[in-house]
């Protein structure tokens, strides 16, 4: 019997980039994104890459990005969910009614009660997860193709949302609830720096922890300088992002109103900045949780195994039907969280909320490298995909491209992105 020590791992000469062991596909996407941003900034004469616009871009991306995280798992397991926009609308309707009518009036909490927002969110997530689980049951146990189930779901939930509210716009929403919308709920400069610092330390710690665990089994690890370079890149990316958001000053008039609302008088010459929006922090939290789920939990392993070979997963004792229910339930819960962000951003529940989001969400996941053939996809890719789509759309709007042309460009970009991906995978022999 031979053990590991008798199989030396042959040292290989590698290039600088290879030694960093970066995902070249991700690098390509980041590169495309940077070129896009610089391009728009150039055309708009510096209006695109301002703290204000970057702030707006991030809060506009959150809702689609949150759902895209769930869509990754759906597509990885060779399914699709066409109902996410409609499900968002139903969840939004349920939550709007819960916070403006059911809790304050019927349950007698009264408007503005601090428990309204948390209860509303729990109710919304429960509703989303339940509806998602039902879709998953139809797909997994009754073996109706997900395309059909969720196409039906699109029609059903869009109109259940309408039916619940009789087509009316509901608002204004609860104050605390609206903090999840973006501009109405930000951490301010100091707290943002702290969050940035914590995230940086956590990211670097996770990286070095992985290295230690590899080294403890005697596996090859990256050279220390490569790890240090990566750590430096991560730290500057996170802190740079926080710095940009912390550079967006709250307009004086708005500040004065905020002080007045608290019954105080604004000191003369007082300025402060928005900092990290709570909705973005929420997205970051979801992204981390979903990445851990995908890579480090059994459930995540089973999702990818099922996507790679459903029969093999079944033969390995994985209950792929129940897995389907869980994945769709997760998608439904994420739709509800997106509904919180989307309705809070608008300060109202509107009937057409989330319209066409299913297409944006699927496009984000696919541009982000999720393969429709199953088994492949990353959470960070999908979020970057959402960001690229949103930048493209906002940038074109800023340049003054008409809406129909915007859609044509987005459509072309989606197809081109997939084509580039296919060519890339063929070249690298990646699958």
């Amino acid at each position, binding site marked *: 019997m031979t053990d*590991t020590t008798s199989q030396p791992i042959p040292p290989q000469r590698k290039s600088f980039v290879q030694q960093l062991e970066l995902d070249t596909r991700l690098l390509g996407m980041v590169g495309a994104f940077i070129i896009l941003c610089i391009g728009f900034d150039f055309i708009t004469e510096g209006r695109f890459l301002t703290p204000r616009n970057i702030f707006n871009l991030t809060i506009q991306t959150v809702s689609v990005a949150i759902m895209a995280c769930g869509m990754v798992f759906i597509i990885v397991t060779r399914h699709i969910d066409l109902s996410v926009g409609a499900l968002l609308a139903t969840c939004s309707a349920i939550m709007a009614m819960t916070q403006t009518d059911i809790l304050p009036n019927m349950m007698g909490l009264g408007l503005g009660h601090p428990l309204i927002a948390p209860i509303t969110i729990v109710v919304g997530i429960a509703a989303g997860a339940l509806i998602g689980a039902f879709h998953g049951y139809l797909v997994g146990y009754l073996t109706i193709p997900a395309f059909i189930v969720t196409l039906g779901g699109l029609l059903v939930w869009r109109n259940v949302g309408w039916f619940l509210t009789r087509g009316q716009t509901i608002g204004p929403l609860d104050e605390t609830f609206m903090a999840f919308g973006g501009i109405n709920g930000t951490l301010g400069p100091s707290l943002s720096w702290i969050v940035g610092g914590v995230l940086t330390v956590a990211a670097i710690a996770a990286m070095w922890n992985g290295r230690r665990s590899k080294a403890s089994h*005697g596996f090859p690890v990256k050279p220390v300088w490569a790890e240090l370079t990566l750590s430096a890149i991560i730290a500057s990316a996170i802190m740079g992002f926080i710095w940009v958001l912390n550079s967006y000053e709250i307009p004086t008039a708005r500040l004065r109103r905020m002080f007045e609302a608290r019954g105080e008088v604004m000191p003369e010459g007082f300025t402060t900045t928005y900092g990290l929006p709570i909705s973005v922090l929420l997205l970051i939290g979801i992204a981390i949780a979903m990445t*851990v789920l995908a890579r480090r939990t059994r459930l995540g392993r089973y999702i990818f195994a099922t996507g790679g*070979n459903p029969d093999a997963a079944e033969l390995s004792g994985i209950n792929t039907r129940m897995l389907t229910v869980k994945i769709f339930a997760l998608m439904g819960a994420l739709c509800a969280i997106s509904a919180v962000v989307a309705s809070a951003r608008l300060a109202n529940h509107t009937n057409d909320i989330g319209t066409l989001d299913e297409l944006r969400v699927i496009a984000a996941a696919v541009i982000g490298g999720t393969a429709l053939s199953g088994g492949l996809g990353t959470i960070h890719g999908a979020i970057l995909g959402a960001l690229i789509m949103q930048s493209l759309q906002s940038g074109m709007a800023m340049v003054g491209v008409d809406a129909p042309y915007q859609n044509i460009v987005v459509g072309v970009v989606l197809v081109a992105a997939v084509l580039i991906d296919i060519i890339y995978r063929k070249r690298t022999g990646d699958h």
Partner: protein
Amino acid sequence: MTAPLVEMRDMSISFGGIKAVDHVTVDLQPGEVVGLLGHNGAGKSTLIKMLSGAYQPDGGQIFINGEKVTINNPRDARAHNIETIYQTLALADNLDAASNLFLGRELVTPFGLVDDAAMEAETRKIMGRLNPNFQKFNAPVSALSGGQRQSVAIARAVYFNARILIMDEPTAALGPHETQMVAELIQQLKAEGIGIFLIDHDVHQVMNLCDRASVMKNGQLVGTVNVNEVTDDDLLGMIILGKHPHENAA
């Protein structure tokens, strides 16, 4: 006489009118290798899939150590220490060797997270036994050769202390050296008291490795013989003509 390790009694299953397995009875003793032979489509894989939990039989009973058991799914089979190397290998192509080896039985850290490093270390150990040339531990198994993939499937079946091992054409894609290693592995597992069903088209290999051989034709059992009481030609006759050698002699 003690009860056999496995007895599959009067097993039947059909797929839309085709009787894939038609009232077949086979058994297996501890430390015994029973070869399953038959032409393509004879029903060999289907028979053993009823033991591994992949298919539910239409009729018949399964006994393990004399006790009647119901195997409804692959989890039940694993719970009875039945491990299977499928003809199709049943690997998730997008995952690496270690993830496939431990699929459904991942090693976890104290926090309940999958411990990839520990699984890779275990995989390196067992692959060192089965296929020392194997080095592609960090590639998805889709990037492996047919034989390398087969090694991963074999490693998965032997790693978890099987009592009953089902091998469906385990050496179909292997080179001569690797085939020899599997033959040695079978001898070693047999010596440890494991019972093995071996499906193989190579009559010579079956004569060398097996104690008994059961031959199937068109879903039915032609017969079961002790290999040291028959010749290669007898077995071939059973496979091709469906004739039992002793009927022949009579």
